[in-house]
């Protein structure tokens, strides 16, 4: 399945970290998005600006990640509002079409899975006879708990409600890694901007933090 291959090859699994190319692509897109959204103009309220920033951050993350279920879902959900659609199109360019296009396996797989599950349930029921749930049996309890958690998880992950089982966990892993990278980069951005803002007031107070300016 090419989607899963891209999932594994994109992030090194040992370190559980997003790659540098991802981060760079993310930054590029985010800055482009911030510009295009016009966040520097004074005529926005804070709320508007915040949502514009969040939008450009999410879109940048989705674009940098490429074609995964959650990235597509992010773009699709955002473009459901008309006012965002124009902005998205200008930020993403041709990637917009690529990410919006409904991929074959995103909606066929869950449907076929449901059919399979139903048929399996019927078959096993026919074979083993109806086994009543054991009331407070721990296995049943555990299953119920897990089911509840997976429902919550499905709501959290963008586009997760159409996934199930191992696919959902795959997406969770990928999404969590990307989120972490997003948070990291946004923290750095905000630090940089705040520092420069500080610097504009009083340039002379910039102090040397360390002697060696070793390049990373």
């Amino acid at each position: 399945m090419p989607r899963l291959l891209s999932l594994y090859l994109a992030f090194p699994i040992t370190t559980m970290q997003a790659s540098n190319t991802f981060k760079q692509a993310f930054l590029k897109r985010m800055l482009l998005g911030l510009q295009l959204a016009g966040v520097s103009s004074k005529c926005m309220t804070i709320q508007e600006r915040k949502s514009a920033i969040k939008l450009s951050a999410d879109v940048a993350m989705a674009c940098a990640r490429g074609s995964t279920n959650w990235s597509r879902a992010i773009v699709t959900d955002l473009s459901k509002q008309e006012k965002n659609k124009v902005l998205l199109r200008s930020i993403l360019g041709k990637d917009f079409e690529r990410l919006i296009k409904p991929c074959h396996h995103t909606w066929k797989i869950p449907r076929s899975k449901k059919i399979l599950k139903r048929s399996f349930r019927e078959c096993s029921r026919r074979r083993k006879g109806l086994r009543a749930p054991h009331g407070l049996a721990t296995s049943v309890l555990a299953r119920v708990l897990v089911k509840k958690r997976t429902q919550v998880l499905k709501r959290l992950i963008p586009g997760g409600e159409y996934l199930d089982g191992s696919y959902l966990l795959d997406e969770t892993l990928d999404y969590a890694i990307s989120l972490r990278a997003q948070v990291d980069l946004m923290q750095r951005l905000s630090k940089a901007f705040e520092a420069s803002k500080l610097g504009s007031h009083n340039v002379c107070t910039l102090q040397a933090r360390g002697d060696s300016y070793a390049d990373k």
Partner: protein
Amino acid sequence: MEPTRSSGDGSGNSGTYTPEIAESLRFEEEIQSLMRENTVHPSLEPSPAGGGSSFTALLGLPANQAVELLHDSESGDSPAAAAAAAASSGGGDMWRFGLRDPKALTLPSGCSPTFPSNAALVERAARFSIFAAAEESPDVASVPSHSGDHSTKPKAEPPDTECQPICPIPVERQQRPAKRKEAERGNKVKGPAKKSRAAEEGSAKVAEESTGGDKLPYVHVRARRGQATDSHSLAERARREKINARMKLLQELVPGCSKISGTALVLDEIINHVQSLQRQVELLSMRLAAVNPRIDFSGLDNFLSAECGRGMVGNGRGGVGMEQSAWMDAAVVNGGRRQQQQQQQQIWHLDLVHPHQTPSVWEREDASHLFINPNPGTSLFGYDPASSGLFRVLNRVETGKWYVKPGTL
């Protein structure tokens, strides 16, 4: 630990002892010549002295490994011992010794600054074993393509009598070359530790092996002892193992989750983690919104393309630091000046920030810059080094090491 050097070592794997002695000598020579050249030959040909069995292919493997270990460890005392040890024992033992010896030998010697991690060696070993074994029987080839669900297997599992490389299992976690991945998807075979115990397995095994091969859309699972072998339960077991493997990966991702046992609790932790990350994104975007009106993005962009054109101009101690601070200033400083100088490639919807001039820095920047005009129609910064420049710059901010030369401001 002293590896047994007798060539007639009874690992019982290969019945050809005499070629092994000859091979060990050959290996030693090669290794010493390699040591002299100090180059690694990962493509060392496995000497086909033992006939067409897979053992000879595996014989080549430890030699490669030994060569690389020796090269990387750069310890002069171990080559002969390791080589001999690697070459003299049987197939599976050779592999094991090859893997464990460097640890034993280099630790006392205390050197090996460039000793690669076990993981890299194991990965190479896996690759070689797969490539070597793939030319032999298809049966051998099918085994190395282990599924990722073997993460439950302990990594120190001793090789079994068939010298099946166990390394794919630890390697699974560390590298998934696309080729093997595809083989996995199609052909999942349980490890040798679980094979051939029960009568039921016979039927299942026969059924699986008849369709063995690479890149089939079916999942092949060997039945365990005492378990049902009908296709439904097999499929369900395969599915469960997949899910368990993913859960393990997620446990590694979320900090502090590896000691929790139980799917529901682990899922709890994962959910909390994802929720906290999402909340952090919200908070950060609020922070950026609060800070933002001062930032002039056009100036930022111009500055970045210029910065990367200039590279790291050594300007005493302050060279790179000046660049850093100038970036900070430029972000806030009037970018309009710069904008007039450069052609507009992108759509700037921005109002200019009020000019806040620091002429001294600015002029210095101007003097030493090469302006690079990004090609129209390409990426935002014209070329990738720009984004890496920003990235680098942000890294420096992160580490808190930015610096302004005292005399410039």
